[in-house]
């Protein structure tokens, strides 16, 4: 579904991505792990076009999207969420998700009709919110929501764009452990058609939910494999236990 070839990026002399080649087939749940500063978020920024790669190629569903801006990539189904909440504080979740749907359906340029007249869009927005158990709070302003609910809204906004590939940047960042398990259950329940790549530091969650794992270190991909392979690999142990991280 999503393939990158030879992605490079450096800031001055600092190389943050070196020859990144990954291939995500449809419907697979990938975890992207690695120590702090390994370049995980940078990779998401490169794939979604928030950062321009110095070299390399990104292909989504057979189409080369390397030259496209972030908006066009989203329209083609490559969508991300943010590690630090990036929401619309003074919109209600219902408004925010409806906004995303209106933009997707290209009715966002209509100024002579009320939003409420687009009943299908509103229904869909409400459906998305309910599926992430946000139905009860969807009329309150986003900034009034509990932190965990805001993390869910991050995902709801991404889902509203009908993604083919969903890149989740630490979806449970800052969420207490008991709740993060719930959050990942919600992620696990997402449609199996969606390819998911998520960054997560909690290894228990990673091993529970990912069908494949990519390990990044120092801007490069160290290895990729099934959870069992990763758990058994001595290099991963080295990085996580022997390195500065531990």
């Amino acid at each position: 579904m999503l393939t990158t070839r030879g992605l490079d990026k450096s800031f001055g002399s600092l190389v943050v991505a070196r020859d990144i080649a990954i291939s995500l087939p449809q419907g697979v749940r990938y975890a992207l792990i690695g120590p702090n500063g390994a370049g995980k978020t940078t990779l998401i920024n490169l794939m979604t076009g928030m950062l321009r790669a110095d070299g390399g190629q990104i292909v989504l569903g057979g189409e080369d999207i390397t030259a496209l801006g972030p908006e066009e990539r989203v329209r083609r189904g490559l969508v991300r969420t943010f590690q630090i909440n990036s929401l619309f504080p003074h919109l209600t979740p219902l408004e925010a998700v409806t906004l995303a749907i209106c933009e997707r359906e290209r009715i966002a340029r209509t100024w002579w009709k009320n939003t409420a007249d687009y009943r299908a869009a509103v229904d869909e927005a409400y459906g998305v919110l309910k599926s992430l158990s946000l139905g009860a709070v969807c009329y309150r302003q986003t900034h009034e929501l509990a932190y965990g609910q805001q993390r869910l809204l991050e995902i709801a906004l991404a889902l509203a764009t009908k993604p083919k590939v969903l890149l989740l940047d630490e979806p449970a960042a800052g969420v207490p452990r008991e709740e993060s398990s719930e959050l990942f259950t919600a992620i696990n329940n997402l449609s199996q058609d969606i390819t998911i790549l998520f960054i997560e530091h909690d290894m228990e969650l990673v091993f529970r939910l990912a069908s494949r794992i990519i390990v990044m270190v120092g801007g490069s991909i160290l290895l990729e494999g099934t959870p069992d392979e990763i758990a058994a690999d001595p290099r991963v142990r080295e990085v996580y236990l022997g390195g500065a991280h531990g």
Partner: protein
Amino acid sequence: MAAASPALADPHHYLATQIRWRRIEVVFWLSTLLPFVLTPDYLVLGSQIAVTALFALSLDLILGYAGIISLGHAAFFGFGAYTAGLIAKWGWGEPITGLAIAGAAAGLLGYLMSFVISRFRHLALIMITLGFGLLLLEAANSASWLTGGADGLQGVRMWPLLGAFKFDLWGVTAYWYALIVLFLLFLVARRITNSPFGLSLRGIRENAVRMRAIGAESRPHIRKIYTISAVMAGVAGAVLTQTTETVSLGVLDFQRSADILVILILGGAGRLYGGLVGAIIYLIARDQFSGINPQYWYFPIGVLLIIVVLFLPNGILGGLAQLIYSERGQRWFGWLTAPLRRERKS
């Protein structure tokens, strides 16, 4: 800010309630008719307030809704004012077509300008709009063969409105005219803010980065609202010209851009009525204070501003809304903010 209502479960009902006319809105618009009866000597001031309110409304659409700051919005107000004045001076004194042409001219200028505006945000925008405003002011000043320069544009003669109502000395026609134009464009603005387009504008204001991440291009939206805002500002300027039958360089002045920003923030940005309430309070206060002390009337205005910003960071309307939507406020004033009875069966 949303008031709790019993039928919370249904999103359609919720959204429909959000956009329904409220009793307090009806009260507000009806009370704009009171000056005809209560203060007939102040109708000239009334039409100035209506013009300023419309100008503030135009700024609210870009600043309050889309988050685009402008310190040069008088450019469009003045452009509309001069356009309307010149049309009348050159022999076409029919007000309504003149108004339309002036609005279109200001809109065209706004459209061209929007290509620059949509590329910048925050401080850069302040500088650009400020510079653009000064540029236009000096252009009008130097082109005195066209604009009359510092002496103002002379010889603006308006025909009677609809061929029947002369613009009189007491401002009866002027107030009617300004009020109707304000109300019609307010309806447009209200519709815009309740539309999917208006929702996207608020999204841009709240988080432009996230807009990109949900696949939304902000620039076309910004260009569109900037053009609409310029039309409204131009119409406001044109109404001023037509009701006073003169144009001075003051319509393009930096002071006017600054005043309108102050008025909007005073009233409360992003609430449609903020600019209207701000215009009423500001102009009446100025009228009263300058009556008391013609020389230092900006002093009490300054005090008023500081008090409002210190105690009501969201403007007068923001403070009122907080009061009214509190639990006790709803008990006392709930009937005012309740939507009009108009249950639609569907």
